[in-house]
């Protein structure tokens, strides 16, 4: 997996903002997303063509009105020109509207499609990807970069439009007076060069400003997050000073960026005035001979329109660069091979009894660092197995493999359910019969009801209440003002950890799974809630195969079997009594747990 960590140096940041203006790799990947929009793209282009032609013809029509009719005192002809002018204005209106609507439909379509495909791709990526990737980074791909990239379509249309209107202006100038056109157009290359140089300068300052901004904002954000500890350690003064340094630097870069961005104004004004002067000066020499007064007026009108297309064209270069950089980041993620979730021969799992077998199971996340070593373990249907061991002994990996969060490579042994290798079962059907409660309760936004139902949206309210009663969650939910309709605030901050965990238990049990896995599910909760869960445990494991990872003795003692793990090895199996008698690691862990109290006596 090629996933570049974010560098901190300025060079890296520049690279992150700007790519090549044309990146073949990105464009070729983008084409499939543009293809479904082919019709819209074509329509947008046609509408744009009509729009540009009509738009740049107005000064020319004014010229016809003046030279052919006003000069000849032909009022009737002037009226006809007026009618033509209004008709063209109408066509211009309609085509302009259509162009914008088609273009935005197209780019929104690309955006929607890209987002959906990226999200779908992310769903297929293995758990190991999420272990390594920050959520914030994914969010900025999903929402920042996708937005940048979709603008490519709109940008192409806009740039082409500006280019065409520049050509349109030049063509009309040439038609009216070739000689005067050539003289006037002298300013265009100068203006163009001015804009390019200015863009380069502006870009550099823009980057500096952006970096300075993000440094300042990061500092502010960190202070907001750590405001309590800052007060505990009374560091306000130092922090204020160091923030002020960053903030002042931001002010400085903002000022220079302002000077440069408005610095282009005098140049543009000067060159425009030169162009107008050229028109008037040389026009006056030609008047009555090769051109008439209307040409002069039309020229003055056209000259003022040079600037906008030129600026748009120079700016779109930078915009293309940014879009390409975003595209690169998006396709980098899209290129990560998803795990093959289900091999072709996989079957659906039905009628589960719940016999689980680990046969010669070995596993490692990284080469040479085995996490599990040749594990052999059997759990009979309806039995409860407790797994104990130090942190890092492989307990959680064992159940991650059982639930196929990670795929088991070939020749690493097998895990069977009712005698079927789980690699031969579709993952979805496997998980339909299995429920896992993790150490950290994770709730989604929505109500408590939504959270218990989760993907079983068609579950009835009675089922939800029944599940909540089974796990002893009903009482506290009922006591909330809004009951099951209580909305979950950000990260569940309106509920205690214990209450959130009770909801996770209800969610797990709602589908009535045959296999129940508790992965340190009671490690982080207060004793009152733990008491509730302990009381519910009997009902929870009833007629289910259960695997419980825990370090609280009360939970472990009563299990049918206890598996003791150490550094990836299964070293002891048996019930509490047997393991205490055998005086091994279990006995040690058990004594240690008691020690902390007994010493105090």
């Amino acid at each position, binding site marked *: 997996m090629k996933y570049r960590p974010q560098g901190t140096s300025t060079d890296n940041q520049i690279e992150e903002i700007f790519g090549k203006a044309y990146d073949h790799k990105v464009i070729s990947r983008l084409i499939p997303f543009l293809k479904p929009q082919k019709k819209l793209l074509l329509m947008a282009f046609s509408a744009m063509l009509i729009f540009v032609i009509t738009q740049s013809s107005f000064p020319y029509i004014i010229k016809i009105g003046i030279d052919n009719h006003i000069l000849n005192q032909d009022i009737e002809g002037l009226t006809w020109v007026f009618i033509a002018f209004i008709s063209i204005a109408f066509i211009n209106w309609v085509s302009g509207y259509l162009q914008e609507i088609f273009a935005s439909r197209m780019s929104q379509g690309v955006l929607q499609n890209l987002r959906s495909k990226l999200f779908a791709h992310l769903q297929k990526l293995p758990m190991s990807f999420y272990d390594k990737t920050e959520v914030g980074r994914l969010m900025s791909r999903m929402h920042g970069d996708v937005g940048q990239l979709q603008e490519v379509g709109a940008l192409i249309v806009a740039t082409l439009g500006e280019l065409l209107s520049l050509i349109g202006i030049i063509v009309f100038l040439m038609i009216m007076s070739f000689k005067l056109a050539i003289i006037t157009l002298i300013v265009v290359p100068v203006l163009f060069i001015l804009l390019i140089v200015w863009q380069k300068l502006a870009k550099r300052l823009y980057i500096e400003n952006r970096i300075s901004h993000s440094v300042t904002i990061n500092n502010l954000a960190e202070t907001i997050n750590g405001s309590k500890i800052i*007060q*505990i350690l009374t560091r306000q003064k130092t922090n204020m000073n160091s923030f002020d340094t960053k903030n002042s630097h931001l002010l400085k870069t903002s000022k220079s960026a302002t000077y440069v961005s408005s610095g282009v104004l005098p140049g543009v004004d000067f060159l425009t005035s030169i162009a107008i002067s050229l028109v008037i000066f040389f026009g006056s020499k030609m008047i009555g001979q090769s051109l008439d007064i209307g040409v002069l007026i039309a020229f003055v009108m056209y000259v003022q329109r040079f600037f906008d297309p030129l600026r748009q064209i120079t700016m779109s270069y930078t915009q293309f660069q940014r879009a390409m950089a975003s595209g690169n980041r998006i396709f980098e993620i899209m290129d990560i091979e998803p795990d093959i979730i289900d091999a072709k021969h996989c079957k659906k799992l039905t009628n589960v009894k719940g016999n689980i077998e680990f046969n010669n199971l070995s596993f490692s996340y990284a080469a040479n660092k085995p996490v599990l070593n040749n594990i052999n373990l059997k759990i009979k249907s*309806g039995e409860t197995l407790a797994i104990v061991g130090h942190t890092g002994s492989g307990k959680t990996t064992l159940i991650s493999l059982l639930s196929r969060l990670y795929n088991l490579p070939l020749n690493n042994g097998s895990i069977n359910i009712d005698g079927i290798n789980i690699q031969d079962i579709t993952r979805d059907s496997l998980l339909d019969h299995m429920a896992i409660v993790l150490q950290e309760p994770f709730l989604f936004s929505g109500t408590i009801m939504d959270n218990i139902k989760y993907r079983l949206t068609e579950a009835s309210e009675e089922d939800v209440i029944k599940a909540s009663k089974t796990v002893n969650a009903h009482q506290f939910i009922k006591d909330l003002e809004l009951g099951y309709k209580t909305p979950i605030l950000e990260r569940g901050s309106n509920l205690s950890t214990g209450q959130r965990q009770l909801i996770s238990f209800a969610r797990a049990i709602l589908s009535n799974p045959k296999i129940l896995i508790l992965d340190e599910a009671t490690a982080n909760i207060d004793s009152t809630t733990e008491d509730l869960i302990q009381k519910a445990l009997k009902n929870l494991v009833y007629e289910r195969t259960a695997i419980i990872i825990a370090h609280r003795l009360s939970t472990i003692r009563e299990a049918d079997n206890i598996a003791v793990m150490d550094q990836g090895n299964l070293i002891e199996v048996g019930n509490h009594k047997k393991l205490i008698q055998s005086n091994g690691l279990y006995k040690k862990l058990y004594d240690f747990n008691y020690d902390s109290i007994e010493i105090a006596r």
Partner: protein
Amino acid sequence: MATRHKWNLILAYACMLGATTSFLITPKFIGKAVDKIAASYNDGIIPTSLIIETVIAIVLLMSIRGFLSFWQTSLGENLSHKIAYSLRNKFFNKVQTISFDFHDKWHTGELISRAISDIENVRMSINMGLMRAPYFIAMFVIVSILLINLHWMLGIISIAFMPIISFNSINVRLKMRQLLRKIQITTAELSTISQENFSGARVVRSFASSKYEQSKFDSKNQEIFYQTIDAEKLRAKNATFMRFAFTVSIGIVLLIGGRLVINNELTWGELTQFIIYMQILSMPVTMAAWLVNAYARAVSSGERLFEILDAKSKLKESTNTLKIEKSNGHIIFDNVSFSYDKNISIIKNLNFEIKPGEKIAIIGTPGSGKTTIANLIPRFYDVTDGKILLDNIDIREINLNSLRKNIGLIQQDIFLFATTIRENIAYGKENATIEEVINAAKTAQIHNYIETLDKGYDTIIGERGTDLSGGQKQRIGIARAVILNPSILIMDDTTSSVDTETESLINDSLKTIMENRTTLIISNRISTVQKANKIFVIEKGEIIEEGRHQELLEKNGKYKNIYNLQLKPTENKATTTINK
């Protein structure tokens, strides 16, 4: 500062005045030139010198205009940057000094968004309100007067459309705001869906619910598509209509103006001026809607911003406070009550004494008020009733910083800063030597681990740096408190989110730290509190039991209850019988 802003603004206005004047005079000269040229139809070729004069005037005027509008824009923008700068500083200072109840109330995400987007909105509106708005209004008024002055009838005809266009587009803009807000809300919902999907990746996979997640995502995504198209339609309809109306009025000027020229009621130059001024006029008219929108946005952003900047800290430091150096660590709670709001009291009439060097523990369920006790001593909140005495002085009479420097508080969630380990440990004591840092790390039993890192104490931690486990973070948090050498140590649920092994490691390190210090241990675990000189059991803000571990067990009350639950599985309790 304020006077400097005033001069900045006056200068900017002067530049604006100059730029606008020269900008609006230019068409006059162009018109003059056209008149001279038109005259040549009758008088023959005009002398170059006459044209040159006008041409030079045009170049000069445009150059002056360019120069002045550079300064006008720069000065206006820079003024807004300066104000944004001081707003950011104020914001920063507010969040790091205000009392804790403020932070309990506000989500960090909300604060960050106000600091970023609302300050930016206010900044833009300063430039908009002070510079752009007067500029556009002035331009519209002056051009209208000039046009009417040139030819009153044609003038009125040519500007007749403008109020209608402005009014229409302001209306559209306000409708647009609602549409955009809808899009904003849907977009926020979409990002919540993806955010939760990514951070809950394990849950999503455990429930095999990616299809369900995809359908949730796609339906919101679709919704945004339609909402955006609606907004785009409205925008395009308005923008293109505006352009059409302008083109039509130029057409009318051509028709009527042409007739006037034919009838010799208008000169060529005047017709030219009309056409050019009409082009100029399009700017203030299109911008009217934009200004109204910016104004509306600025008002709401300003309100949101000042809600933070004007927030009052609930702590009041009196003027004649006493600065203490090294306290003895003698704490007395004298009839202390506390409530966040008047109805719900968190702590009721609490009375206890901690003698110098004593170790006191408080145990209770979440919500019993035990953390509040920890926060009252360093005055993160002030008591509602009664008083807390340190060395027999009411803590409200002690200089706040000197009080806090005497207290080391270790929280449950350790927040570490995105910098080196060394700077994190020395966070409260910036001038600490590396030896002091190492000593603190050794006492906190984290030195050995730090030594195994490639860069040792210079290792960057936090979001973009090395990941630390909960226990390691906790021990850095301890080192950070230890380095202050405080006479009072408060441990607020310090070990509740680490596993048993780590807990015992941390407890080992705490043993040395607690020596010769007044220590307050707050926890819901028996194993953490059992060794204290005295244990208070707290329920609903009141002490219900107190004594040593053994005494409390013998009392057979609440403490015994908790003890049973946590450590001693009793056979006769049906609760733990798993066998069917």
